[in-house]
């Protein structure tokens, strides 16, 4: 695995909140999922990696370059694609015009080549049928796709996607996952999410972040294994568990130290995640 980016003991504070508190991990080719509850520091971390924000302390390296050095920062930006959490669009711009605008920001000055590239990314996210429509007239899911298309301009080697599936309905989310997994072939993709299904479906590598610290880095199956032997089902709530919730079948799933003769079950990725994070956070289990 070739390393695309490394983060080492990064700290960042906003007022009284310590958003990042010594985060350390590595990103290589393929899709890496950054999993964590709201307020974990995911967006801050992504903004630092996308060279939009700077850390208070710690070292960051993208493609072996240091984003705090101006000349190297531009080199990183030339190979980077960024999808922010709340993508914004100029008023009155059509899909084509917006992506063309971002293409100019990516230094594509030749109009003919630029337009061909814009058409290519629009085709890649399957938006050709609306390329003439105003972006603000489209649904949230489609707008995200427009922003994703813009991030794909120039075939960047490193894609940073901030909660790309948030607010999408299940069908849109499936389509997005397909797009992202295709985009991940041959390049490094870092996406943040609080949906464990996204990670299970997409990622070769997972990083769990909470309260500004990295709690885990490894494969999805390693994350599931964290909960090995610590997940059991019962017909009623058992007090000794750390976390309990009702399943679809009307039984109760428990996480924690199982009592004797408990009905142990295979752990899922979500179980591992919840056990590490120690609480449900904003998103309750299904």
């Amino acid at each position, binding site marked *: 695995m070739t390393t695309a980016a490394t983060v080492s003991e990064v700290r960042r504070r906003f007022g009284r909140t310590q958003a990042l508190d010594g985060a350390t991990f590595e990103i290589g080719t393929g899709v890496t999922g950054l999993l964590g509850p709201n307020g974990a520091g995911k967006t801050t971390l992504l*903004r630092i990696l*996308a*060279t*939009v924000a700077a850390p208070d302390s710690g070292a960051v390296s993208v493609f072996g370059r240091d984003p705090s050095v*101006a000349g190297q920062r*531009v080199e990183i*930006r*030339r190979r*980077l694609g*960024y999808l*922010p959490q709340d*993508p*914004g*669009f*100029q*008023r009155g711009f*059509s899909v*084509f*015009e*917006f992506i*063309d*605008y*971002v293409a*100019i*920001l*990516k*230094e594509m*000055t030749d*109009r*003919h080549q630029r*337009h061909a590239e*814009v*058409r290519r990314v629009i085709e890649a996210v399957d938006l050709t049928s609306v*390329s*003439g429509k105003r972006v603000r007239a489209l649904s949230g899911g489609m707008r995200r796709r427009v*922003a994703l298309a*813009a991030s794909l301009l120039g075939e960047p080697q490193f894609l940073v996607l901030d909660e790309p599936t948030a607010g999408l309905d299940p069908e849109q989310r499936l389509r997005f996952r397909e797009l992202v997994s295709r985009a991940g072939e041959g390049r490094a993709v870092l996406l943040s999410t609080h949906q464990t299904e996204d990670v299970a479906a997409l990622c070769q590598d997972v990083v769990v972040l909470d309260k500004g610290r990295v709690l885990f880095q490894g494969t999805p199956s390693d994350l599931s294994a964290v909960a090995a032997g610590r997940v059991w089902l019962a017909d009623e709530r058992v007090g000794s568990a750390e976390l309990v919730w009702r399943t679809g079948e009307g039984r109760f799933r428990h996480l924690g130290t199982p009592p004797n003769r408990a009905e142990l079950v295979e752990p899922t990725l979500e179980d591992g995640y919840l056990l590490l994070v120690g609480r449900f956070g904003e998103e309750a289990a299904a």
Partner: protein
Amino acid sequence: MSWHVSGQLVTSYATGELQGARAASVEAHVMTCAICRSAVNAEVAPERMHGIWSAVEDQVDAPRRRWNERVLTLFGMSESDARLVSVAPSLHASWLLSLAAVLAFAVWASNSRSGGTTLFLILAPIVPVLAVGGSYGRWIDPTFEVSVASPYPTMRLVLLRSTAVVAASGVLALVASLFVPSGGDVAAWLLPCLALLSITLVVSRWFTLPLAAAGVAAVYALPLLVALANHRDVAHLLLSASLQWAALVLAVGCIALLTHDPMLRSALRRNR
């Protein structure tokens, strides 16, 4: 339709061999029959079809050029730079009209009451500052984050946009000043304006541009307006030589600070 044109007929029509009423019949038929249309279509060389479609695509996709873009290219800006600059909200008709309204109010005030010129001298310098605040930054430009993450030099974008909006709003203010009835004294707003603009750009290193501009404008205008409301002799202050000198010194100092920024050199280098 119970019959369709044969291959033979289609070919002789397409080559121009078929004439007269027979050709007219084929043409009339083709207008109403999709199947025969595709038969005729097949007679055209694919390269010719692709070539024309490619040209159609280019024209159809070419983003519509706005009026302010055209003006910018007239002044020698490259097409792509003009696109990036013309998107600035304060270069749009709505902003410019609002700023013009502020100036118009100041002009009216100066014509309708004695001492009204002071109001103009307070408001005129901050109009270009507000325009700069509306050209780039966190709450002003919806694509702010993506702009920062892009290789295009942010400083160049800020400078190009600021220059354009200062020129546009400056022209408005200059025109307005022609209607203010006190002759040469009216030029007294120019140096303070220059000072405020350069201070804004320096302050924008630490605060986002809209905030910097709003802050600088407020710090300058509010105390003066309050003093004016309390019937203090603000005019004397604004027209005094010492204020003009202070403005000049501040402006020169800030510009010196800005030009020593290494980022500036890369920003001013023309795009490849």
